[in-house]
């Protein structure tokens, strides 16, 4: 082969690889999640991400025929990391709130959440007397804001992750933990089975959980919304739901 054609072959191969690469880059969606919020998103002992959020995210990516990559990020830095383009979407059980809406856009909700108290079995704690004691919450969650606004006299202790709040409930440093129904339910089924139980009814409900994306990234939001409607219709969502919860989590 003459030299010239060798060069042109190499060039065209490079161009092909580049175009392929850019096409892949376009379809690759990086998804930020916390990895410390079982059963929604958690890391297994060998570092695998598992959970409801993760399965939903995988189902959505499959539906969108997109390649997805997960990135774990501490909760208190998850919105800045999205804004700094460390990833393109947050699928981490994030509630839609007005404060967050000023920073990010949300897709359609993918489940409905409520807040509930959990306390040791021998405690006579109820939602109406929880305010006299120490309440454990995760910093930066709607539970933290709810506890501070509704229980002004309570000693609200905010932890970096949900796991630490439960650890201190078991240690007896807080008298109750206020958190999302889904995580509390799962904890009472597993690690918290021996010690604790739900106390009273849910204290706030109809809180919508959605995927957060950078402001103005409407194309991605549309893709997620279409895919969400599709997995709702084809039974994939129900399958994931049944894997984690014996009740319907979507709400409405």
């Amino acid at each position, binding site marked *: 082969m003459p030299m010239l054609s060798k060069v042109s072959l190499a060039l065209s191969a490079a161009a092909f690889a580049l175009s392929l690469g850019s096409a892949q880059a376009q379809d690759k969606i990086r998804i930020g999640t916390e990895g410390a919020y079982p059963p929604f998103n958690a890391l297994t002992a060998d570092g695998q991400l598992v959970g409801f959020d993760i399965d939903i995210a995988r189902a959505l990516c499959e539906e969108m025929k997109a390649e997805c990559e997960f990135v774990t990020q501490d909760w*208190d830095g998850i*919105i*800045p990391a999205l804004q700094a383009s460390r990833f393109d979407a947050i699928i981490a059980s994030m509630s839609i709130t007005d*404060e*967050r809406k*000023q*920073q990010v856009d949300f897709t359609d909700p993918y489940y409905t959440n409520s807040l509930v108290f959990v306390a040791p079995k021998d405690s006579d704690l109820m939602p109406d007397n929880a305010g006299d004691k120490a309440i454990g919450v995760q*910093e*930066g969650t709607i539970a*933290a*804001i709810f506890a501070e606004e509704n229980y002004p006299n309570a000693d609200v*202790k*905010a*932890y*970096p992750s949900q796991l*630490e709040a439960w*650890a*201190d409930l*078991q*240690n*007896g*440093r807080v008298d109750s933990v206020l958190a999302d129904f889904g995580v509390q339910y799962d904890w009472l089924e597993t690690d918290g089975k021996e010690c604790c139980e739900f106390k009273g009814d849910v204290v706030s409900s109809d809180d919508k959980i959605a995927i957060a994306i950078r402001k103005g990234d409407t194309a991605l939001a549309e893709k997620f919304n279409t895919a969400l409607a599709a997995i709702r219709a084809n039974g994939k969502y129900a399958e994931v739901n049944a894997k984690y919860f014996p009740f319907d989590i979507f709400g409405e």
Partner: protein
Amino acid sequence: MSTASRLDVIKPPEPSRAWTKQRIVGYFLVSLWGLAALGLIIFLVRAWNPELFSRYAPSYFSGLIITIQLVGLSLLLGALLSLPIAYARDATSKWAAWPSYMYVYFFRGTPLLAQTFLIYYGVGSFKSPLEALGLWWFFRDAWYCALLAFTLNTAAYQAEILRGAVKSVPSGQWEGADSLGLPRLLTFRKIVLPQALIVALRPYGNEIILMIKGSAIVAIITVYDLMGETRRAYSRTFDFQTYLWAAIIYLAIVETLRNLIEWIERRITRHLKR
């Protein structure tokens, strides 16, 4: 000496200050810093939000008080604890020297964060034995756990500072006092310690500054110190100037301390000035 005679002194001419490469680079780097500082000030002025300020300034202030209390008290208790440790470290008895050596080795060799976690979550998980001992009230409270961790940590550092400073005083001072028939404790208090403190002042200052900055980790064991309040404000507003303000407050504390330490040093070394 009168002022007139001082005027008669013939001085060598001032060396001419050429624009060397180093000088140009120096001016350039300083002006870069100046621009960065200016940019920061402009950013803060533009991002100034009176609503944010009125909402979070009181909590920043209470956080600052917590930080100062925690660091101040642990430094004081650590100083007291460092005395026997420093003394035992050079004791002739192995039974005194070894535990003291191990103590310093452990607390200087592991991160303060790990020590705080060990005390808060580690010791904290032994609730019933602690209750039986009547100590649970102490370990239940995150503030006490932080105080204990910080005290133990700073005691190790302060013991080493103190030991090094005392050792730096020449042995002739001890011998001289001995020959005058002074008791050892008096020698230590009146002769050795004042000289050692001059050596120890700067390292002590560094230790205080390190503790103030290191204390920011208590925010993750639910103590609302300056950093804890900052994290809370940030989690509500997502406005990163909350962290910038915290940095400015920490910087102001450190700068104040630095000047204070310099003033003390000038004062206690004035007999050395010529």
